[in-house]
């Protein structure tokens, strides 16, 4: 089987999949990709199952050397990607051959880049998932960040290479990335009643800034304080992904992939499922405002997103191989539609 050797790990690169399901009752966090949309799109490109493990790189991507021939795809935050120093597009299948070096640079827009390979990364399953939970030291590569010298084994691809080459995700179906002030849709609750009207008003109008104290567990935000009606503490209960909890200091914290399973702070609102991926693409100093929507609208948005994901990948119709004879020499050329970036 081919594998990928890590030449440079990037800033914070881990193996992730859809996370651990069913174990929060034992206190085990879910983990999984911060931007599940880009993870699923990346897997769809190389015709992996949704559950295949990919690499999630934060802000600065890794440099990987391929041993063998394998199809790969890079999605998520916009970043310069090269193979052997030559720029290659994101959101398209790349053919990596033995010795090829894939480099993902510093993100230009968004925070997290996903690298999928046909077959997926074959690290050991821990409690039903390959996701790395660094704080708990489980999953991925020995429960830690990927580092230089690691050799990442790959599983056998499920589809023949010929079926994978030419796959791409058109621009309209690529992930959304943060802009000047990113609007994130929320559903109020479960403990919005702990906040008086004026706090709810501030919450729906104010602009918050993602602080440096932000990681896969959650994003601490800076901005106008939200004063509780009575007190910030509640009897500890479960924490849904995207829960926005407000401790006594009044500043919201958005709970994300590696969040603890239970907590005792009032939660003013919860980010809707389809906007979790967008939230996961935010980085320190990015600005966010929250827009309350109805549960029906949130479910409708989720339905639309599912139908987009199900339509992936697109296949470039003009991808065809020709054998060209020039004099006595015969060469193979592949001609396909180029998907424009930017």
């Amino acid at each position, binding site marked *: 089987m081919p594998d990928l050797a890590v030449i440079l790990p990037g800033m914070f690169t881990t193996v992730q999949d859809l996370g651990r*399901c*069913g*174990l*929060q*009752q*034992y*206190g*085990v*966090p879910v983990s999984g990709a911060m931007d599940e949309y880009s993870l699923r799109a990346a897997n769809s490109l190389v015709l992996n199952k949704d559950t295949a493990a990919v690499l999630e790189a934060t802000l600065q991507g890794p440099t990987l050397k391929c041993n063998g021939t394998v199809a790969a795809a890079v999605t998520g935050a916009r970043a310069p990607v090269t193979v052997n120093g030559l720029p290659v597009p994101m959101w398209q299948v790349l053919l990596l051959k033995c010795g090829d070096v894939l480099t993902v640079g510093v993100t230009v827009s968004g925070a997290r880049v996903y690298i999928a390979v046909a077959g997926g990364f074959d690290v050991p399953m*821990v*409690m*039903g998932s390959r996701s790395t939970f660094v704080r*708990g030291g*489980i999953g991925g590569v020995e429960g830690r960040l990927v580092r230089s010298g690691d050799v990442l084994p790959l599983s056998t691809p499920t589809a023949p290479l010929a079926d994978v080459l030419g796959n791409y995700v058109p621009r309209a179906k690529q992930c959304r990335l943060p802009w000047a002030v990113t609007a994130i849709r*929320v*559903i*109020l*609750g*479960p*403990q919005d009643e702990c906040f008086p009207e004026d706090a709810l008003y501030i919450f729906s109008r104010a602009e918050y800034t993602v602080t440096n104290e932000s990681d896969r567990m959650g994003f601490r935000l800076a901005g106008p304080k939200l004063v509780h009606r009575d007190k910030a503490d509640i*009897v*500890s*209960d*479960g*924490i*849904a*992904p*995207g*829960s926005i909890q407000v401790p006594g200091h009044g500043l919201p914290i958005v709970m994300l992939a590696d969040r*603890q*399973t*239970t*907590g005792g702070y009032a*939660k003013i609102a*919860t*980010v*809707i*499922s389809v906007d979790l991926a967008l939230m996961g693409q935010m980085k320190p100093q990015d600005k966010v405002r929250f827009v309350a929507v109805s*549960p029906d609208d*949130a*479910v409708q948005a*989720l*339905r639309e997103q*599912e139908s987009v994901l199900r339509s992936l990948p697109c296949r470039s119709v003009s991808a065809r191989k020709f054998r060209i004879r020039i004099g006595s020499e015969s060469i193979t050329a592949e001609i396909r539609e180029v998907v424009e970036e930017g």
Partner: protein
Amino acid sequence: MVRYLMAGDSHLVVEFGQNINPTINQQVHALARCLTEQELPGLKEVVPTYRSLLVSYDPLLLSLHDLKECCNRCISSIADICKQIREIVTIPTLYGGQYGVDLAGVAREVELSEQDVIKIHTAVIYPIYMIGFMPGYPYLGGLDERIAVPRLKTPRTQVPAGSVAMAERQTGVYPIPSPGGWRLIGRTPLRLYRPEQMPPVLFRAGQYIRFCAVSVEEYLCLEELVKNNEYVPDIMTEEVL
């Protein structure tokens, strides 16, 4: 009586009350069991906590309306099966000495002998209200107030795995090494959290824990069994009338 609270578009909080009390908590666990047994398409997982159940579901497969209906049916059927059977997990514990460095201090503070503190601590069958904070950490109720002491003023940076600890009206056992400010009165040789096994934790929320004092010899013997994967957890089922 029950309140349904939205936690986003894919999670529902079923809240039975606002307080920490055994009756409310039993209802939470009964609903968790009942919902799990329904094998409802689209139901992903349940997270029981002190006084509410967090239900994770796929709204494209299971509507909020149908989920609430199912919860309502479960709740009306659990009213009388609550309380009847309890599963008690025994946690063998070596108290005091180097295994429970704070036991002597606790005994002095509450003006009892070390033996009395052990006797009181092992006499209670503690309900596991919930598991959280870290993998396998049980929130237990019911510590006897005669042995209640405040937390350490300065928390320890590292508490060894298996430490049996208490603070105020709470007691618990650390599944993995962690910083902690509770008083360490003993240690169990059991591996409470074993990520390579399913389920990954020795006990689950809704069960009960009983601490049982063991000697150094028994501790070392159990430790050997645990190391060789030969230890069979002691889980007792008891009917409550």
